[in-house]
């Protein structure tokens, strides 16, 4: 069974007990669509809070990181026949009322993926990293690492495939696969709250930043010259 007009909201969460409940409630009240929280092996009560707030919880048994969690949600969404998936962070930095702005380019057929961009939020180091990746990949996007995105069915199918399962971060690797499959990505300016609690899982120590830059650079270089190809069939 498919729901061409229905959409699903996917929220990857790792130890987001203080914020996840209110976000789930806000999304459900505003958009009246199912909310799925993918619990990435939290050690607090994230799963219970999300479930109590009315979300479906997908409990991962091993920690897969933000992208692995989102892919789990995308596979779940495809299995249940949803045609649009919106992802947002569980820490409260994305405004659920901006989901409408994200869905607009998809509904108008202007894009397959819409990214909620708020480049002003970035620190100097993060901006340098983004400029570097833009230069390396030729991607024309301002906010490469934003987790606030909307995917249509074609994009969901591509990103739920085995090909996207070895990606470690939800940014350049994902964008490169989308580009290679000939899918269109646009940015939509959105407002963003300061991260309520906790810190970015990538930009939290120099060691992790270094590893991230090295791995992502290698990924970009390895993908140079790969031409766009049509989307693969559903997983």
């Amino acid at each position, binding site marked *: 069974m498919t729901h061409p007009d229905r959409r699903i909201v996917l929220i990857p969460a790792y130890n987001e007990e203080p914020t996840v409940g209110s976000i789930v409630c806000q999304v459900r009240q505003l958009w009246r669509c199912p909310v799925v929280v993918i619990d990435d092996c939290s050690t607090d009560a994230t799963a219970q809070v999300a479930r109590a707030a009315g979300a*479906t919880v*997908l409990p991962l*048994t091993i920690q*897969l990181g933000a992208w692995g969690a989102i892919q789990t949600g995308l*596979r779940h969404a495809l*299995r249940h026949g949803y045609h649009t998936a919106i992802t947002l962070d569980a820490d409260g930095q994305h405004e659920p009322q901006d989901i409408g702005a994200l869905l607009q380019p998809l509904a108008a057929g202007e894009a397959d993926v819409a990214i909620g961009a708020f480049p002003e939020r970035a620190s100097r180091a993060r901006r340098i990293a983004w400029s570097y990746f833009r230069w390396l990949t030729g991607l024309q996007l301002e906010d490469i690492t934003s987790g606030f995105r909307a995917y249509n069915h074609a994009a969901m199918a591509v990103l739920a495939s085995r090909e996207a399962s*070895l990606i470690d971060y939800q940014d350049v690797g994902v964008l490169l696969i989308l580009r290679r499959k000939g899918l269109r990505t646009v940015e939509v300016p959105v407002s963003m709250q300061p991260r309520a609690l906790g810190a970015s899982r990538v930009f939290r120590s120099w060691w992790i930043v270094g590893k991230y830059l090295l791995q992502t650079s290698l990924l970009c270089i390895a993908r140079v010259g790969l031409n766009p190809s049509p989307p693969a069939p559903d997983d």
Partner: protein
Amino acid sequence: MITYQLTSMAIGVSLAIVILFLVRRDHLHGPYAVWWIGAAATVALLGFFPRLFDVLALKLGISYPPILAIVLGFSMLVVKILTMDLERSRQERLIRRLAQRLAMLEAQAPERSDASSQPSDTP
């Protein structure tokens, strides 16, 4: 006086015996067993006929034959390590997708997964 050939034979045969033992005991999965049986056979052959390298090196224009053994052995190790990482990557992909599927299945039966996540006295 132990000769070079005797030492070489002892090393080659011992290694071959250990590998064959591990394969027989089913400690090595099929495709890996094939590689290691090949390695055991090569080591045993070279153990019995260490002069093979001298002949081969001469034909390949290498003036110091032992270096041929070292270079070939090192190359084979690199190939083996590379295939190991390929296999690890394949397994990593499988494990990730398996964990994702498990999460999807658990979401279909949350009551049971909650119950199973409770500590239990029974093994």
